[in-house]
């Protein structure tokens, strides 16, 4: 198995994000705290084949979000994101 194929995108973490946030998060725009790139979460690079889920900037590879799931506990580190843009009803 080529390790290049382990690299997915935010679509793959859609269920996990939906479960945590209670909302469809793949369309939320996240700003990378390291390089400023703005992308919908679906477009972030995701490594899901790990002890946790890691979202990385598709431009600079910096870690944006990390999630660890243990039965009924979830740990979330969003510190790589400087800003989220969501749409709300006007």
């Amino acid at each position, binding site marked *: *198995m*080529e390790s*290049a*194929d*382990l*690299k*997915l*995108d*935010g*679509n*793959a973490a*859609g*269920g996990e994000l*939906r*479960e*945590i946030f*209670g909302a*469809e998060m*793949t*369309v939320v725009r996240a700003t990378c705290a390291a390089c400023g790139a703005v992308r*919908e*979460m*679906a*477009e972030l690079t995701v490594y*899901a*084949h790990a002890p946790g889920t890691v979202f990385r900037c598709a431009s600079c590879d910096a870690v944006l979000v990390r999630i660890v799931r243990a039965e*009924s506990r*979830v740990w979330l580190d969003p510190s790589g994101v400087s800003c989220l843009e969501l749409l709300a009803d006007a």
Partner: protein
Amino acid sequence: MERAAVLGRLTWLLAEVVEILPETPRVKSLVFSVPGWPGHRPGQHVDVRLTAEDGYQAQRSYSVAAPADGERVVLTVERLEDGEVSPFLVDELAVGDRIELRGPIGGYFVWDGADGGPLHLVAGGSGVVPLAAMLRHRAGLEQAGPAALLYSARAEGDLIYREELDRLADEDDALAVAYTLTREQPPDWTGYDRRIDGEMLSEVFGSPDPAATTFVCGPTRFVEVAADGLVGLGYEASRVRTERFGPSGR
């Protein structure tokens, strides 16, 4: 003091297999009846969870293969050689069995034709599944803009939904379907016979249309080559939507 659970807004539903449709030697479509299914949009996926008697669990994501139809959810699964879940779904699952699934999931890789613009689809292997859901949905619309699908597979026998895709294209002047077989081609083959490149994309989709939405789906490397190719031709990156499948499904 007990902490109340704050999570779990996406519930696991029990889905019963009502029909199994062989598609290719390694691929089957599984038709489920899912009580409580809220409906879905083309391009969305579900998470499937399997639990062994000792509690061991495995979870994978699969795109929904057909547009919303009440409680009916269709998944098309390819048996991966080293897979843990797909061999079970393709070889063991029988009509009447039940599995857990949750969804629908996804808001980015979704198309329901509302904008009426041209639809461009690029599929690598089993990446054709969510794109077929879009085309099946489009076929049911009263009015739809033009659409084109470029579908890459290793050999003719690996093409999923081949007859249906050809029929949809025959019945609709505004739909074009092109295939490329990268490893082997039958003797009378008139389609493409190489990996996707800029020239092929240009021939299939024409010059970049700013009103077009493009969806690319398949293994990671396929998606990146195709998406880079499209952007290289002048497609607006923000209108090229990608979904990467991993080596073991997703």
